[in-house]
């Protein structure tokens, strides 16, 4: 058991079907693990909040028996706090209960304390106290389309939340329902899915109803967004007014992951799966694909990845850190986690044989201390 402290460290959090594992590293190569935390509960969402001079890890926890909750730790998992009255619950009169927290999204550096959450049933939430208490976004909950939103295979959820630097523009993606945009900080919402296919519906180009799997914002170009759809990879250059395909050059246009660079314009990563009906890496060969020109071209990245891998990567089981060069991390449903310290050029397996990986998050932190008691 050791306790380390350095001025520059990295934290990696791995949420699985049966608990959470945490790791720290000084070089993004050697990782010291603790876990499982929350054994036998699934961890479908994680937010690492490095604002306010602290490292707060927030987790959506869900027990099959005892329901969902949000807990947080300010000491890298040594202790966890669950607010007594519950961090997230539907208010009286909604006749709804939170089933699962799918997304925990710390807002911009300029808005410390603000954390967004996406949940099942389809709902968006906002905290102004660092994730200790969330309020339901009534504009989206009361939207007239809500009764027509559907459930994907994993449940009906708002799973992606993207907020622009000024905080006025908020984009949400839901399965199924598609992309909704607010121009007033989340008060009112309109669907923005022009160009995104919903081939599984009678009208393949509806105003809403798409199964958008993940959206992410370009780091440096305001109004540019990327989407991994249920078949289809898209970019918008006009704040989601319209979407165009950027799937050419990829081995498949199905998948769940969409990551963007923390600073550089035009850089994004996807992890393709073969098809809706064949949810495995194409030909059983797992690879990450990166574009550096906003989807014009794609580069296959598989150095360090296994020759054969038939497990899928889920929508939040991938993340980037904010370091230079950016780290890229992802985990499979087979319980392997891969990390790259060079933007995907090479990967190393940092954990294996974990339960199904549901969520991965990573961050560069000023001063990480962890008691390394368990190796994954």
């Amino acid at each position, binding site marked *: 058991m050791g306790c380390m402290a350095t001025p520059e460290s990295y934290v990696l959090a791995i949420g699985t079907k049966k608990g959470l594992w945490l790791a720290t590293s000084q070089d993004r190569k050697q990782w010291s693990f603790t876990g499982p935390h929350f054994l*036998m509960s699934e961890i479908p969402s994680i937010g690492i909040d490095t604002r306010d001079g602290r490292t707060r890890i927030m987790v959506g926890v869900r*027990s*099959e*028996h*005892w*329901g969902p*909750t949000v807990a947080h730790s300010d000491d890298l998992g040594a202790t966890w706090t*669950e607010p*007594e*009255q*519950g961090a997230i*619950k*539907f208010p009286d009169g909604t*006749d*709804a*209960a*939170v089933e699962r927290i799918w997304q925990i999204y710390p807002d911009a550096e300029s808005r410390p304390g603000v954390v967004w959450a996406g949940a099942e049933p389809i709902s968006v939430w906002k905290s102004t106290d660092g994730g200790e208490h969330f309020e339901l976004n009534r504009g989206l909950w009361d939207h007239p389309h809500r009764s027509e939103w559907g459930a994907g295979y994993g449940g009906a959820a708002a799973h992606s939340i993207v907020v622009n630097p000024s905080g006025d523009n908020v984009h949400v993606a839901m399965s199924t329902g598609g992309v909704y945009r607010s121009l007033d900080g989340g008060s009112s919402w309109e669907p923005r899915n022009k160009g995104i296919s919903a081939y599984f519906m009678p009208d393949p180009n509806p105003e809403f109803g798409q199964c958008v799997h993940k959206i992410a914002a370009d780091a440096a170009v305001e109004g540019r967004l990327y989407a991994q759809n249920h078949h289809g990879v898209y970019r918008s250059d006009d704040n989601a007014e319209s979407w165009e395909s950027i799937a050419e050059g990829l081995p498949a246009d199905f998948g769940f992951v969409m990551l963007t660079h923390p600073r550089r314009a035009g850089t994004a990563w996807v992890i393709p799966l073969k098809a809706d009906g064949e949810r495995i890496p194409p030909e059983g060969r797992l690879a990450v694909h990166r574009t550096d020109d906003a989807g014009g071209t794609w580069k296959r990245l598989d150095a360090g990845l296994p020759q054969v891998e038939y497990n899928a990567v889920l929508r939040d089981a991938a993340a980037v850190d904010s370091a230079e060069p950016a780290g890229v991390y992802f985990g499979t449903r087979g319980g392997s986690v891969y990390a790259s310290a060079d933007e995907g050029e090479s990967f190393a397996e940092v954990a294996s044989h974990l339960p199904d990986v549901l969520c991965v998050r990573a961050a560069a932190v000023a001063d990480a201390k962890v008691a390394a008691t368990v190796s994954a």
Partner: protein
Amino acid sequence: MAEISVVLPSVLQPLAGGQSYLTAPADGTVTVGWLLDSVTEDYPVLARRLRDETGALRRYVNIYVNGDEVRRLQGLDTEVAAGQEVLIIQSVAGG
């Protein structure tokens, strides 16, 4: 005053200060819903583990009154009398 005991599974006992059962005073009969409100009043996290925010019993939480699971009786409206024992047991679930 007579009491009704609610026996907790071991996994939930840390949420009730380590107690293996909780008691509520009761003259005559009360409903299971009232009983849960009463015994979890000081333990809000325990309350949320048993019921969601609409008040519904979580799907894999079973409550037995005299050996009968309350869903086969009148649910949370099932009446319990002083001296009877109420058991909370998690059902077999998960993979």
